[in-house]
């Protein structure tokens, strides 16, 4: 959390948790799918289910799936935008156990049938947490540039990835490893201080033992060059 999570985001109302956070959750699902979604099943839990309609949570999640940011003035019209973009979606309620009150489960599919199931919660002030990916419990927020890597659970895979990051002069801010069972598929979530280029992500994806990789570039600030404190 930084001070612009407190004084900010600059956003379309009415709710930082139910509107801005929901846009970010939708946007995160689109990014982690790694391609344009054509179909989505959205399941709302807790306060999202109780009060989501009034807060525009449904429209906000769809807006995010369409790639919008929280200050996009088209958010109120996201359902119409989805039609234009060829995104089919369904929205219903779900009752999850041990989930944050503002939680959504989103299933998305792209044109080729590639599928992702993500559970994420909106923590307040527009900040979000990804809680599950394809059934595996995870914990990351999108506050950093984030690599989500599916790999075989074998020795050396983690070292290979981190040594490449070292060579690219990319500093790892946080790193977590998750797996269903020993020797199966595993998940590596690496949050980095520096941005990665598409070519660098592609290079990582070709390492042995890596099954797939998606990369989330954190939201960029506006261009603030030309600012002079002396002029204030």
């Amino acid at each position: 959390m930084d001070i612009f999570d407190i004084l900010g985001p600059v956003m379309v109302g009415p709710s930082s948790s139910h509107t801005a956070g929901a846009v970010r959750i939708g946007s995160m699902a689109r990014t982690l799918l790694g391609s344009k979604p054509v179909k989505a099943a959205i399941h709302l839990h807790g306060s999202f289910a109780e009060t989501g309609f009034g807060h525009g949570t449904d429209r906000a999640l769809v807006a995010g799936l369409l790639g919008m940011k929280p200050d996009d003035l088209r958010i109120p019209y996201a359902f119409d935008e989805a039609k234009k973009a060829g995104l089919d979606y369904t929205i219903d309620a779900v009752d999850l156990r041990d989930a944050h009150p503002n939680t959504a489960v989103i299933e998305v599919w792209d044109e080729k049938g590639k599928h992702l199931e993500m559970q994420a919660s909106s923590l307040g002030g527009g900040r979000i947490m990804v809680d599950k990916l394809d059934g595996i419990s995870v914990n990351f927020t999108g506050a950093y540039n984030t690599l989500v890597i599916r790999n075989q659970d074998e020795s050396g895979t983690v070292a290979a990835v981190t040594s490449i990051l070292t060579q690219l002069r990319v500093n790892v801010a946080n790193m977590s490893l998750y797996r269903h069972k020993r020797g199966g598929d595993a998940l590596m979530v690496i949050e980095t201080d520096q941005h990665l280029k598409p070519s660098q992500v592609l290079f990582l994806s070709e390492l042995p033992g890596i099954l797939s990789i998606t990369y989330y570039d954190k939201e960029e600030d506006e261009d603030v060059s030309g600012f002079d404190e002396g002029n204030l």
Partner: protein
Amino acid sequence: MSLDSMKEIFEQMAQKNKPFWEIVLEDDMETRQVTRSQSMAKMLLTWQAMVDAADSYTGRRRSVSGLVGGDGMKMRQYCIRGEAMSGGYVSEVIAEALSMAESNACMRRIVAAPTAGACGVLPAVLLPLCKYEELSQHQLLEALYVASGIGAVIAYRACIAGASGGCQAEIGTASAMAAGALVALRGGSGEQIGHAVAMALKNLMGLVCDPVAGLVEVPCVKRNVIGAVNAVSVADMALAGVESRIPVDEVIDAMGEVGRRMPVEFRETALGGLAATPTGRAVTKRMRKPQ
């Protein structure tokens, strides 16, 4: 942000012999790995977004439910007619809090501070002050740093979302941020900022989040007014030398505890309080999505 208590900010102020706002600025530079200019330029954009939202308010928009819209303009006109009992500055604070909170409910672009539902409080105390006092943009940015530092400490130690801790966490935190900003603008000490924050939170402690039909409309818009007016009164008290008998960090912790123990009906679920009144339920029924 790495500042986890008001006490730590006071200690750094003493160690470095720097004002409150600059401790927060330096912490932002460290946390986000940005330069002083980059941080301040972003804060200026934030301030401009608040000014834009206020300047473009017409009072003509209505919310989806039709419950909200136009009250800020009614209050502005009442102020202009000179009829307000609360007089110049405070009556304009009321009008601005209504206008900004209404803008949020009507899906206009605002700055969450710390949340969208509480977005009216901080600009409501700052914007009218610019008419009454000669304030440079630099001073206003300093005030915003103070406000955001206070909000970050509260978010770390307690909570700022209605769903987590009720309205006291949203409007209460906004009020504390606004109070601290006002004390800083008037040249108050770090301790005085702390007393203002403590008093702001104490006065609103226990306030539930009970939005009618779950919309950020009733009573949220008008609660921005109580947050803003509360901020002005505790800032004046702190500047007059009135002190909180409970230290500010302990007050923040107490607010967090009250929030955690608050029944779920009073945490933004629209199941209790004003939302559960006969009229509140009727609005919910009217607003329910056709299945």
